[in-house]
């Protein structure tokens, strides 16, 4: 078996909740609560889940943009989760992030060329001329033109801005790109353009993606492996085919049945989930999904199911598959 390029081990991020004046006990929001997965070279790992499940936080915690509380992130045999800000600089040459909102993630006061050049200024030895050439090259790579460099973000459409974000992420020639809801803010027609660009780049540059999205159909198109997150935990994980054709966890089944663009083989009728995702401030006991689960058993609200191997690289955390 290949060695993973990046390994996330038992990653946790617990925010302390503001204590009241007289409350003694410190409570935590468990935004990420023990997440494990691996990225393999030139593959795409899709991380899906409803908003608020912790998937975006996971992406940012890997890059230490938000400080993780516990766990390891192994990259090139080293645990980067313990790195200092200055040590992280070399990591940022290899791991880059594409942000969700192409309107908010580009500084409105900087010209596009400057935005793309910035990583090169702070994190490379290129001189000004070489940087300009690189910026032009990057603009062409993502389907824009060199003359766009002098324009400002507000002069571009959402899809174009996301291309700028991609160019910026590519600037340092990273190995891994974390795409955090990279196409969610775009129209469907633009989504497919950007997705195709990402696939093309992966082919040509040998990139590895962590693709984070709430949209199962988008994830399906680009991913090799899938992890489904619920309330800070991965509850099902497997190959794309495994998860999409043979979903095991009731939550995954419900998600797939609710996604109109996906023809699941065992899709009989739409499963409607009751209620909303519970607050991570006050998670349910046992399996966090049990209050909304259509197949809940008596033990579900008592015992927390572990993520277990069910064969073919497929993992699920559910008491239904205990046998």
């Amino acid at each position, binding site marked *: 078996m290949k060695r993973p390029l990046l390994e996330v081990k038992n990653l946790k991020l617990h925010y302390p909740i503001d204590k009241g004046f007289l409350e003694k006990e410190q409570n935590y929001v468990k935004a990420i609560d023990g997440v494990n997965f691996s990225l393999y070279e030139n593959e795409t790992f899709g991380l899906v889940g409803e908003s608020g499940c912790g998937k975006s936080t996971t992406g940012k915690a890997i890059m230490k943009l938000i400080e993780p509380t516990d766990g390891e992130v192994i990259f090139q045999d080293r645990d980067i989760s313990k790195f200092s800000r200055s040590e992280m600089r070399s990591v940022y*040459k290899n791991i880059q992030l594409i942000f969700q909102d192409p309107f908010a993630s580009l500084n409105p006061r900087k010209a596009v060329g400057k935005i793309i050049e910035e990583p090169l200024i702070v994190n490379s030895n290129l001189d000004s001329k070489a940087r300009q050439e690189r910026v032009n090259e990057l603009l062409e790579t993502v389907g824009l033109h060199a003359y766009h460099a002098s324009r400002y973000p507000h002069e571009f459409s959402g899809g174009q801005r996301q291309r700028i974000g991609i160019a910026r992420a590519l600037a340092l020639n990273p190995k891994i790109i974390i795409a955090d809801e990279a196409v969610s803010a775009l129209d469907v027609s633009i989504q497919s353009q950007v997705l195709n660009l990402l696939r093309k780049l992966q082919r040509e540059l040998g990139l590895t993606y962590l693709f984070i999205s709430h949209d199962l159909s988008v994830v399906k198109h680009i991913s090799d492996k899938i992890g489904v997150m619920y309330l800070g935990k991965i509850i099902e994980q497997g190959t794309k085919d495994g998860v999409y054709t043979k979903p095991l966890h009731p939550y995954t089944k419900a998600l797939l049945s609710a996604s109109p663009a996906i023809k699941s083989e065992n899709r009989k009728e739409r499963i409607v989930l009751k209620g909303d995702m519970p607050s991570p401030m006050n998670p349910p006991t046992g399996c966090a999904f049990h209050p909304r689960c259509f197949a809940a058993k008596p033990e579900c609200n008592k015992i927390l199911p572990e993520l277990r191997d069910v064969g073919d690289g497929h993992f699920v955390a559910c008491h239904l598959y205990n046998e």
Partner: protein
Amino acid sequence: MESTSEVIKPVEIKAAKKPLWLEGWKRIKRQRSAMFGLSIVLFFILIGILAPVLTSYPYDGFYPDRTLIPPGEEHWFGTDDQGRDIFSRIVFGARISLWIGFFSVIGSIIVGCLLGLIAGFYGKWADSIISRFFDIMLAFPSILLAIAIVAILGPSLFNALIAIAIINIPTYGRLIRSRVLSVKEEEYIMSARSIGMSDIRILFQHILPNSITPIIVQGTLGIATAILEAAALGFLGLGAQPGEPEWGKMLADSRQFLTVAPWTLLFPGFAIMLTVVGFNMFGDGLRDALDPKMK
């Protein structure tokens, strides 16, 4: 979507290239009151620059043969008890007021921005200390604080400028701090961190440029306040010294001639008011044009 063929088309750009400040200027130009305020300000700046050309009498000295002459053809604004031409003194006084207003605000902005940036960006104890410091400064009525500072430094125009700069630091500090707190949450700041940018660089490359508009607006209004404060200190004898044609000081010197020679008081006060009106109108207009949320 399944096809892997190239679907990326060159995309058309809607707007033509325009620097950001030009768009701001276009919006300001539409504000009639702002332009009116700006013309008053420019008028006084021009007067200050051209002062030696505009005046035919020296602004200082003692001329016993022409004291307290009412306004007329020879002396447009009359003369004071020393026989000095009031028009000359007001024209030269424009230099002093604009100079104090402008540079004291620059001083307040530099120090205030530095403290506000640190407080907003680093938070925690740095924020607590700096914010408490601002609270304490603001707890004193500002003119009283200015008087006390001048009492320490000794009365002079320059020390009045320093005092005015100091008392206005919290205004800009708080403004920048709140600005930093909101800009800090913007995604492009996290995006800057994700490429390994240092805090200092983020502060000066991203946060400060995005906070500059409210500072310009507040600074313009601040010049108005500073001119008033300088005149007040001059009036109390704590700013300009005898001989210097500072408008506030002129009022103090001529107070006793209120009944016999009201023109000695009318024109300097009017000059202060008009300058301040100009900066206030321009500042209000700037705010409406550039930063409608602020108020």
